[in-house]
Structure formats: structure tokens, C-alpha cells
């Protein structure tokens, strides 16, 4: 066999062994951490849902929402059940575009689309100190009690149906506003599709 083939063969074997080793390492670490990562994510979503829907006890995700004509930013829809197993409203997650990234908002809603609470579960891609302040309760609590007439204001005193943007963070604020609006519309269309006051 010519020398050049030998060297090629050696290179292939070495890379193969390295890849096998790295694959084994990642597999082992994955086996060690996968369950924990999954649990943490689940717990985080559940904690967020309890914040926006305090009397909720069990949250059932509605897997197939293709029939409800939701906005494309709506990423998950849950029915919230209280301790007597009666449905008391919805938790809806949406991922609207902010300034530099997608913001994840979770909204607790009653059947008629009135906002019970808003939590920002992810705004790490937004500007520190400006855009990521949309996660502060001072901003998110403005949405509470608002419904289908929700509107957005960038200056002056907000009307009773308006939320005002954080100054210097208009894009991020508008992103959250649009996300919450999508959630409100989703709640209303879900209720009407299921014939009024749920089950």
C-alpha cells in the first residue's frame, strides 16, 4: 500500500476514535442530566402558571389547537382547573418578537379574555437595563383586568384600556403588548368555539 494511503487511513481512524469518545462523553452527560433538565423546565412553566392563575391547581395543555385560528405567536394553550377540577380559565403562552429576540410571555385569562396576570418567562435576548425591564411587575401588572379592547400607548397618561411602554424600550414593550393581545384573542376564540363558558 502506498504511504499516502496509510496516512489517510491513520487520519480517518484517529478522527473516528475521537468522535466516538466525544459521542460517548456527551451521551453519558446527557443520561445524567436529561431528566433533571426536563423537570426543571416543567417546574418553571408550572410555577409561572400558578403566578398568573393563583387559584389554578392543574393545568392541562391543549395539544391540538389547529381548529381555533390562533395567532402564529401563540405557542401553548392550557386550561386551568381549580382544586374541584372545574375549569376556571386559561393560561396561554405566546412568543412575540421584541427588540432583539423573541420574548416569551405567559398570560392567565378568564373565559371572556380578561387578563388575570402576566409573567415574562424569557426576555434574556433583550437589552439589559432597558428591554429586559418588561419582566418587572411594574410593567406587567398594567395588563391585569384588561380585555379585548387592550391598546398600547407610548406617551402621555394611558387611558383605562391602555398600557404604557417603558420609556427607551418601546419595541420590547410593544412585543409584550402584542403577545398579550394574541393571548386574549386566543382565549376568546377558544371560548366561543367551545360554546360559551367552557365545560
Amino acid at each position, binding site marked *: 500500500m502506498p504511504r499516502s494511503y496509510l496516512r489517510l487511513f491513520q487520519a480517518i481512524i484517529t478522527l473516528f476514535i475521537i468522535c466516538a469518545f*466525544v459521542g460517548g462523553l456527551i451521551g453519558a452527560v446527557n443520561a445524567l*442530566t436529561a431528566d433533571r433538565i426536563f423537570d426543571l423546565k416543567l417546574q418553571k412553566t408550572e410555577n409561572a402558571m400558578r403566578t398568573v392563575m393563583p387559584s389554578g391547581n392543574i393545568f392541562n395543555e391543549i395539544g391540538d389547537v389547529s381548529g381555533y385560528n390562533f395567532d402564529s405567536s401563540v405557542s401553548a394553550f392550557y386550561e386551568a382547573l381549580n382544586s374541584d377540577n372545574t375549569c376556571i380559565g386559561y393560561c396561554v403562552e405566546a412568543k412575540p418578537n421584541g427588540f432583539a429576540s423573541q420574548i416569551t410571555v405567559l398570560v392567565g385569562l378568564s373565559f371572556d379574555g380578561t387578563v388575570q396576570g402576566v409573567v415574562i418567562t424569557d426576555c434574556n435576548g433583550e437589552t439589559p*437595563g432597558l428591554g429586559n425591564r418588561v419582566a418587572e411587575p411594574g410593567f406587567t401588572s398594567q395588563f391585569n383586568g384588561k380585555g379585548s379592547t387592550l391598546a398600547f400607548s407610548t406617551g402621555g397618561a394611558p387611558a383605562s384600556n391602555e398600557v404604557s411602554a417603558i420609556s427607551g424600550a418601546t419595541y420590547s414593550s410593544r412585543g409584550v403588548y402584542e403577545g398579550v393581545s394574541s393571548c386574549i384573542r386566543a382565549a376568546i376564540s377558544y371560548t366561543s368555539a367551545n360554546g360559551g363558558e367552557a365545560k
Partner: protein
Amino acid sequence: MSKPRNPYSFPAMLKRGIITENPVLVQTLGMCPSLATSTSVSNALGMGLSVTLILICSNVMISLLRKLIPDRIRIAAYITLIAGFVTAVEMLLNAYLPSLSESLGIFIPLIVVNCIILARAEAFAAKNTVYRSFKDGIAVGLGFTFALVLISSVRELLGSGTLLGYPVLGASYPDATLFLMAPGAFLVLGFVVAGFRKITSKKEGK
């Protein structure tokens, strides 16, 4: 590396990694993560220590394999190993320090292309024994961490008025958000490097 007395003793290597040949402040390597992850001291510590851990692993592994890896494919081999370690560290952070991994975000996977790690692999681990490479990983990793902590303390103090999350400047301090953003990062980096050079060059009597 032209120190007269045993240049590979651990204290000498530490001094080089942290002070005289600091990867960020002297060699200006790894600028992207240094600018991006130095918004707070806790981010900087998390990033610095993650890089240190990966650097130690990759240095040891590459030094172990240095005679087996054919020259022509060495970069491919190094990158594969480094990517493997980074992925492992990313999973561990996700599982055990979720809030940190969330705030560092994309910069953890990006350690794969961190030039400090590849530079140490190519310039040191590929030519030195395993034990020396291990010490080099610690020294250079701590040098990187030290630089990040230095930059981030200035940025966190001026930008949020806190240090490691504890309020230092009081509630009346108006946060200078500029320092948390990219322009502030460049400004602080420039001044920290200048100050560091000033102090170290005085010590060397230049």
C-alpha cells in the same frame, strides 16, 4: 516564556496566565465573550469558570493525544474535542445552575470557537506534557476569569449600582445603563486594559 528559573513551575505559570500574559488584558484574545458576558460579576464568574473547566479538559486531552493526532487533521480533532466538552458543560449548567445558563445563553455554546481555548491547544498543549498542560489550563483559565471579573465589576457597579447583586451605591444612584450595553463594554475594556498595563509596566520598571 524566557524566565530564567524553571518557567514551568506552577507559580510561574500562574503569574504568566493571570498577569504578564493575561489572555484578555495582554494578548487581547477572546474579546467577544469578554465584552458580552461581563454585564454582571456573577455572569463573569460563571463564564470564566466554565471556560477554565473546558480549557483544563481540552488541554489535558489534547496533550494526551498529541503524538497520536496526525498534523494534517489536528484542528479538526481539537475542535471536535472542545465541542464535546462544551456540550457536556452546557448540559451540566442547564441541569444544576439553570439561572446562570439562562443569563449566559448563547455564549456557552460559543465557547467552542473561543480563540483562547484553541490558541492554548495549538500553542501549548500540542507541544507539552499532560501535567504542564493541566497547569496551563488552570493558569490561563484563571487569567480569563480574573479579567472578566475586573471588567464586570466596573460595569455592574456603574451600570446597576450593585456588586454580585448586592446594592453598593444605594437606591438614589441613577443606573448608567450605557455601561451594560455594548458601547460601555468597549469603554470599560479600554480603560481596564490601559490601567492594567500601567500597573504591570511600572512593576517591570519600564
